[in-house]
């Protein structure tokens, strides 16, 4: 019945790991060919792979794991998906209903454990309700603000037979509001007509809303000529080659983007949530601006930053109405002032905050990414990342022209996300170039998935910037903790080339800047999974940076004196 429900939901791929409490379902999976099952090597990997699948396709990712440890191993992935609003549906086995509560073998209170890390979850006690709950689970995961859901199915419910119901879109009571309030939209249009220094601040909500939202956003930006920046999660919703593009904002965002946020007089937040990595010091955040906020989740509004023009609705729906209203009122903007604003921004651009000095002895991580960008930009390319310095550098130096091309763990910051996510992306896009930009420490957290990559012949490229350090931790210890590098280096690293070979994959090591281009091309052209061990400068810090507890206009650039810049108040922040 589960398999039938998945087929009716249009599922083609399931990531999972079998165990005692899901054997009846696995028996059904064995006897069909419509749904591919990808055997991961750890349940956390299954959830991240499903996230990668979901983010690169816009469809929900599906996971099937067993009870007890299977479910608890999925918790990190569920929390990651919740923080980043990724639609995934996780099925867990459970001990038979008559044994629940008896501390049975591989029993865990899965519903209790996952309640705070799912959008919703269900324990199915009656086989007749199974199909209805599965359809509801897909509906909840994908409607409104997307998120992870979990369905816990006891083994006796799996064995029993029941009545199957077909999915019906109207069956659910859960119907979040999509259309924005027209009065509020009109008020925003009026503010846009007058604004002298407007800026669009976009986030993952634009991507979650679907391709139409990105299309409408592009139309709006081109028509108004307003500059646009994006969060880490929203990269790709507006093309990096677009002339109004400011680059990413936030703690490690670009100078011009952060200063534009600080000095603007109209801030239009589209599908972002004023995360603390974005705002910096709250009381100094964009002090002169009127703030408009478009979000499908009412709880995002006024959570962190007080909003002047709140619009609750789906980004695509709201932008469509916004464009209509703006056009019907005569397509007005304060063009003269906006042109001046662009000139001001161009001055900030001249600071060239991403400049770095390449060396001919050691590879700078920025250089590695700049070359990766130059050599792969024109390909059909998907990028995943782990978490840390490499992630920020990737966001700074790689460019994205389209949504759904960039998969990274933003809210939760999960080391170990990128490799399994790249597997999920490659499953969904078998012909595309999928690169996981990694640090050696993050990558080791889920390295067991090499087995999965090799088994399914997934040519994922693991581009490891190896500084033998937990780079971001090291950077913070340098800035905040008197250069006492407590446990932030990677001892006893494996030989990544031999490791790749041990798994039956290809390993490449590169330490000389002169060899970098050839090595990258060798990786790209190899038809199979590759571990690329790029030995980089060990003490490079990631700049620009807004130190904790500081405002957007107090950024550190690369050559800044960094000691003592974070004061006591900022040191308690993360």
């Amino acid at each position, binding site marked *: 019945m589960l398999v039938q429900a998945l087929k009716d939901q249009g599922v083609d791929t399931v990531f999972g790991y079998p165990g005692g409490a899901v054997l009846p379902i696995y028996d059904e999976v064995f006897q069909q060919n419509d749904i591919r099952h990808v055997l991961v090597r750890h349940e956390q990997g299954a959830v991240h792979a499903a996230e990668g699948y979901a983010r690169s396709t816009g469809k929900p990712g599906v996971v099937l794991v067993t009870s007890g440890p299977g479910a608890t191993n999925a918790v990190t992935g569920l929390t990651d998906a919740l923080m980043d609003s990724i639609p995934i549906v996780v099925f867990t086995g459970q001990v038979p209903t008559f044994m629940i509560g008896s501390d049975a073998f591989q029993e865990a209170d899965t*519903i*209790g454990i996952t*309640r*705070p890390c799912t*959008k*919703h979850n269900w*324990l199915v006690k009656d086989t007749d309700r199974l199909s209805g709950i599965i359809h509801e689970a897909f509906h*909840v995961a994908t409607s409104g603000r997307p998120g992870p859901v979990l369905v816990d199915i006891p083994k006796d419910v799996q064995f029993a037979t029941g009545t199957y119901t077909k999915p019906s879109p109207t069956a659910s*009571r*859960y119907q*979040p*509001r999509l259309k*924005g*309030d027209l*009065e*509020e939209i009109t008020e925003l249009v009026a503010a846009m007509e007058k604004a002298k220094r407007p800026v669009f601040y976009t986030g993952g909500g634009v991507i979650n809303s679907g391709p139409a939202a990105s299309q409408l956003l592009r139309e709006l930006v081109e028509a108004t000529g307003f500059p646009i920046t994006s969060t880490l999660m929203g990269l790709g919703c507006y093309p990096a080659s677009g002339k109004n593009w400011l680059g990413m904002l936030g703690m490690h965002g670009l100078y011009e983007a952060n200063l534009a946020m600080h000095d603007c007089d109209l801030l239009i937040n589209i599908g972002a949530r004023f995360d603390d990595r974005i705002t910096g010091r709250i009381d100094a955040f964009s002090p002169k601006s009127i703030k408009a906020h478009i979000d499908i*989740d*009412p*709880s995002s*509004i*006024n*959570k962190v930053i*007080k*909003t*002047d023009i*709140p*619009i*609750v609705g789906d980004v695509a729906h709201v932008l469509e109405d916004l464009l209509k209203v703006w056009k019907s009122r005569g397509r007005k903007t304060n063009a003269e002032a906006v042109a001046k604003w662009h000139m001001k921004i161009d001055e900030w651009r001249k600071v060239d905050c991403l400049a770095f000095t390449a060396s001919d002895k050691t590879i700078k991580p920025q250089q590695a990414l700049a070359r990766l960008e130059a050599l792969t930009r024109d390909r059909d390319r998907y990028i995943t990342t782990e978490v840390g310095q490499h992630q920020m550098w990737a966001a700074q130096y790689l460019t994205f022209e389209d949504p759904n091309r960039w998969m990274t763990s933003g809210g939760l910051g999960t080391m170990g996300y990128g490799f399994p996510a790249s597997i999920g992306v490659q499953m969904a896009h078998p012909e595309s170039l999928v690169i996981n930009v990694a640090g050696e420490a993050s990558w080791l957290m889920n390295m067991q998935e090499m087995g999965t990559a090799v088994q399914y012949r997934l040519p994922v490229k693991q581009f490891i910037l190896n500084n033998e350090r937990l780079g971001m931790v090291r950077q913070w210890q340098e800035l905040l903790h008197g250069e006492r590098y407590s446990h932030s280096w990677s001892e006893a690293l494996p030989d990544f080339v031999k490791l790749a070979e041990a798994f039956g994959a290809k390993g490449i090591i590169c330490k000389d800047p002169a060899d970098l281009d050839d090595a990258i091309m060798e990786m790209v052209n190899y038809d199979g999974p590759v571990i690329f061990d790029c030995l980089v400068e060990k003490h490079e810090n990631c700049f620009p940076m807004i130190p904790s507890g500081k405002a957007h206009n107090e950024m550190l650039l690369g050559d800044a004196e960094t000691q003592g810049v974070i004061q006591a108040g900022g040191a308690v922040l993360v």
Partner: protein
Amino acid sequence: MSALHIKKGASKHSAYNLRPTFSDLQERHTIAVLVENEPGVLARVIGLFSGRGYNIESLTVAEVDHTGHLSRITIVTTGTPQVIEQIKAQLGRIVPVHEVHDLTVEGPSVERELAMLKVVGDGDKRVEALRLADIFRANVVDSTLGSFVFEITGAPEKIDAFADLMRPLGLAEIARTGVAALLRGE
């Protein structure tokens, strides 16, 4: 049950005041939440409060619509206006939550709580306890030669006052239901 047909998530005419005036003053609000009576729904609501660090002063819950399996949860909470708005918005996000109403904002409401108090004593104290119970319109629901159990209904302040009076007279145990509240009028 009162007619609760205000759309969730509406930016106007809604339980969510999307344009609050922020102040740092702590306010006390009574919030009524209509939920589907499914297993774990109370845990979701309580988990939200503990997980996000909100206060619960009192909480009552019971099924109010047996055919529709709907329960009404009444929560008394304190917080700054911004926190109160967040609480309502976060409650509205829970999938089995049908409606969220801030009775403190939406109009005058009646709040009632029931309490039972066991008072142990004899002689004058016993007589005085009985006399005060009469003034507070509390009923005696159990009696022995050395004790009474009083049942009292009223606003929480009235119950506090009654309990304060009973304390020197031999208050041994108290059980309170927490606040149930309804909007006044139609």
